[in-house]
């Protein structure tokens, strides 16, 4: 069995790979760490507290990732994935994320976040909310719609028949391309599902939420969304809003 190479050597061999930071060391954060480490990325990760609190978790569940504080992760990473409870988004170190690509994997889950009308507004996707909280970052939504056990079990090499897909959404072409590359490297087909405004089609209440589909399955669900109950509700709420703001 060959020795595993120290992280530094891997980095030197693949100098172009960005460093990935993950905020949240829970179910999703540890699974994403594993996937990205396996793809050869350097991964920095934080929970809400000190690195010591999560060091054993990371040692066992995502060996190779580096536990840090949230601020250090934000500062030292090229791409930062948000994998903390959405209700706590205001604790994200916004200033340290300026100019960075930020991947929003968060969902409104009322059993964790409590009943929050601001996170459950059909007029505004939660990623739009995150983008306005991080005005100087480029926000892309990804990795939110698939259950963490499917994320764990799903990765497959590019070209595998029935490879599962992850919907991504955003407005910045370059950022989308970077996220697509990351999703691909982590073992899933990236499928563009629209802008951040459209990303409500990845949120709870949409057919894609919880979906473990192939690329064509995701595309079909995106196409169907406007005619679903949820799609109609969103369209009606947004039309009403536009009418109001026009008067």
């Amino acid at each position, binding site marked *: 069995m060959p020795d595993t190479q*120290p992280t530094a050597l891997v980095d030197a061999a693949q100098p172009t790979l960005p460093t990935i930071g993950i905020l949240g060391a829970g179910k999703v954060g540890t699974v994403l760490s594993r996937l990205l480490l396996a793809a050869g990325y350097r991964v920095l990760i934080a929970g809400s507290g000190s690195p010591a609190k999560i060091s054993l*978790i990371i040692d*066992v*569940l995502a*060996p190779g990732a580096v536990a840090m504080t949230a601020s250090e992760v934000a500062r030292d990473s090229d791409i930062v994935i948000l994998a903390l409870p959405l209700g706590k988004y205001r604790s994200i170190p916004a200033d340290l994320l300026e100019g960075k690509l930020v991947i929003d994997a968060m969902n409104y889950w009322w*059993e964790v976040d409590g009943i929050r009308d601001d996170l459950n507004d059909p007029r505004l996707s939660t990623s739009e909310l995150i983008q306005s909280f991080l005005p100087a970052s480029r926000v892309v939504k990804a990795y939110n719609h698939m259950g963490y056990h*499917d994320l764990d079990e799903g990765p497959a090499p590019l070209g595998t028949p029935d490879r599962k897909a992850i919907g991504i959404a955003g407005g910045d072409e370059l950022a989308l391309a970077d996220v697509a590359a990351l999703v691909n490297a982590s073992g899933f087909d990236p499928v563009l599902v629209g802008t951040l405004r459209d990303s409500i089609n990845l949120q709870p209440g949409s057919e894609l939420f*919880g979906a473990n589909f192939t690329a064509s399955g995701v595309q079909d669900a995106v196409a169907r969304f406007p005619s679903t109950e949820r799609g109609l509700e969103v369209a009606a709420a947004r039309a009403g809003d536009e009418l109001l703001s026009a008067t």
Partner: protein
Amino acid sequence: MTTGSIEFGLNSFGDVPTDGDRTLSDAETVRLLVQEAKHAEKVGLDVFSIGEHYREGYVDSAGPVLLAGIATATESIRLGTSVTVLSTNDPVRLYNEFSTLDALSNGRAQLVLGRASQTQSFPLFGYNLEDYETLFEEKLELFMKLQREESVTWSGTVRAPLTNQTLHPTMRPGGIPTWIGVGGSPNSVIRAARYGLPLMLAIIGGEPHRFAGHVDLYFRALEQFGLPRQPVGQHALGLIADTDDEAAETWWQAWQPLVTQMGRERGFYPPTRERYDLELATGALFVGSPETVAQKIVRMTDELQISRFDLKYDIGGLPVDARARTIELFGTKVAPRVRELLAEREAAADASDPGASDPDASDAPQPGGHDLYPIGSTHA
């Protein structure tokens, strides 16, 4: 790694069943649970446990009362909870209830503490869901102090302080068996280890072997805290019938509408039949003939190193007869078959080179946790 000894528990959430084209009343369901617990005892199962829910279709809201009734109707089966929602219970009250149950049942009480997958108790008793972590953390600290210390002094933010308090009836020394139920959050695993409490994995979807890392984490955390190994159990949903097909059909009839309703509340779409079949084949549902279910449980002893397996046999709308059949087959067929398979393997392992791999486990995805998550991080 397996050991020959394994315990079997029957879990109920007090789901209201059907009988022919009639749905039982809540009161009838409560009385049925007593009969089912007696049935579980008769077929030799080790533990009967009930959950804690506060919504239509479930009658397990007053757990200790129900368990007390069962205690006086049974002799030997141990009685516990499949989850007590500690965050919205008062630890002092809980102690009183379970010390009384333990006295009444002559030392048969136990419980699993955790967060139910449903959270109606928070608004019902005036708690905020956002405070979940603090509530659980503080109340666990207090509850364990009450069980482990004779006279307790405690103060915190979630209830009135206690000064040199002793409660009665007092529990047996050290308290009753108290497990921590976890649903996948690594933090909760560490918490169980910190208190040296046994770990109950609630696995209700996906492939169970993905919890192997959690088991590994649990054992390593116990080691780090300088505490002895504790047992790991698994709580799973399922139904046992005479054939695989019959089991699959009967469960689907009740499970599909239930999961559809859950999805509506939480914003996900119901699973397809294809997904369901996968859950049966390699996933978290223990639905099938006695042989199928026994084989699957044996696999869990490999993959998750469990020494306790709890089957939740009731989901809303299931016919009473199907429930009774599950209990019967679980006790008379599945449990002995699992024990037989484990004993055979142990004998085979003893006879062969101790380093050789177990032939029965060769088709299992990844036995144990170590292969899945090799240790070797850059920081300790």
